């Protein structure tokens, strides 16, 4: 039986971890390789690294960061942020990513997912979906780090992306991101109903109860950033609480 995963996320810009609320107001939170190694020691099941650089220089630097993190850790590394082409994905895989996340580019050109799956295998392809509640009681997909709301329904997009070749979905609640008031459990349930691929819940974790709730709502993994970077809790503490709550995690 697969164990539920706890995944720390490193948002990286110019070789440093940054963090903010609702994708804005970024501040420094440490060295990526150092933090990644610490998180592995604490029992992290995987590391997600998101390049939030807005420039070409930043992107080139991100490849160096991927290499440094890869050398430091012996657990899986998924990397996303600014991936537009198969070549971008190949560069990241060669630098040491085990999986590549695509977000805006896949919304613009859905066939990119088919292409990446054919080239690298679907287990390498993660579609990152940023979802925001809409007036109709559903969720719209937002792109460009939340700057643009699309007419796509997040549930429909998740189903299409999985059908095309995404082997995993990184589902972020844009509304809850960084706000630390819990994951959007309705969103997790709604997307879980539509896909059989693994689902990573993201956006809003403040403590172990939030992780437990996300996993019970149907997520295979739960991701968080701020609460780990701030050293307010550790991954082993979270896992201990989850085991106590009879959720199956890797001890």
């Amino acid at each position, binding site marked *: 039986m*697969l164990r539920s995963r706890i995944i720390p996320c490193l948002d990286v810009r110019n070789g440093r971890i940054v963090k903010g609320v609702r994708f804005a107001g970024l501040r420094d939170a440490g060295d990526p390789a150092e933090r990644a190694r610490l998180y592995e020691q604490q029992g992290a*099941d995987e590391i997600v690294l998101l390049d939030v650089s807005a420039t070409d220089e930043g992107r080139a630097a991100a490849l160096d960061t991927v290499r440094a993190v*890869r050398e430091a850790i*012996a657990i*899986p590394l998924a990397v996303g942020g600014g991936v537009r082409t198969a070549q971008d994905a190949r560069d990241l895989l060669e630098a040491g990513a085990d999986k590549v996340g695509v977000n805006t580019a896949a919304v613009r050109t859905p066939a990119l997912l088919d292409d990446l799956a054919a080239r690298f295998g679907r287990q390498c392809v993660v579609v990152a979906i940023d979802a925001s509640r809409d007036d109709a009681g559903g969720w719209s997909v937002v792109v460009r780090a939340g700057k643009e709301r699309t007419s796509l329904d997040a549930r429909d997009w998740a189903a299409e992306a999985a059908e095309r070749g995404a082997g995993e979905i990184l589902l972020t609640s844009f509304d809850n991101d960084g706000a630390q008031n819990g994951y959007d459990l309705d969103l997790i349930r709604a997307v879980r109903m539509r896909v*059989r691929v693994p689902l990573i819940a993201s956006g809003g974790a403040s403590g172990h109860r939030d992780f437990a709730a996300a996993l019970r709502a149907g997520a*295979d993994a739960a991701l968080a950033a701020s609460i780990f970077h701030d050293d307010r809790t550790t991954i082993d503490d979270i896992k201990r609480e989850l085991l106590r709550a009879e959720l199956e995690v890797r001890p």
Partner: protein
Amino acid sequence: MNTPAPLNAAGATVAVVRTGVANLASVCAALTRLGATPVSTLDPSVVRDASYVLLPGVGSFGGAIETLRDAGVVDALRARIERDAPTLAICLGMQLLFESSEESPGALGVAAIPGGATRYPVDARTPHMGWNLVTPERGFTAFSPGFAYFANSYRIEDPPEGWAAAWTEHAGRFVSAVQRRRTLACQFHPELSGAWGAEIIARWIADRPVVVEEEAPAC
């Protein structure tokens, strides 16, 4: 009780077969951390004669076996496994050592191990992605039970004759590793399975089987 010498992979050169789009970086990083030197190759004579060969694999069965066959590496792999030269196959690399896969009907594998890979049932969570428990059966000496990282959509269901198996549960029981002396094939990724996985690679290089205590030792 004698304390065994620490596992040591320093000085070993490991030929890593370049199956195309496989992400070699994780495998090479794992070998480097153990003190070994990875050298990537598609040269049949290197694959046949190297002290250690590691066959990684990401991508499709058909595409990868075509790459290997075009390079003349298929026969070299089969030859070294037949003479029991140290060989470690990972994920798709494991499936490539079998005869076939439902992923690519009609494509013939390396055929060093009898049998083939099959698809998970349609209602199973796939890909089988994440950490799962691996339990070796009696006679399997490459590693002790532990949690391994998997990322696979196909798997081996039936244990091949003449090989020892390790087992994992996901939509039923499947063969998550097979071993025959110095050949080890893992459906999971030891290079991504933390300290437990690193120990598997180190044991394979150092030729240090796990000692399993017998139930009733004769005195």
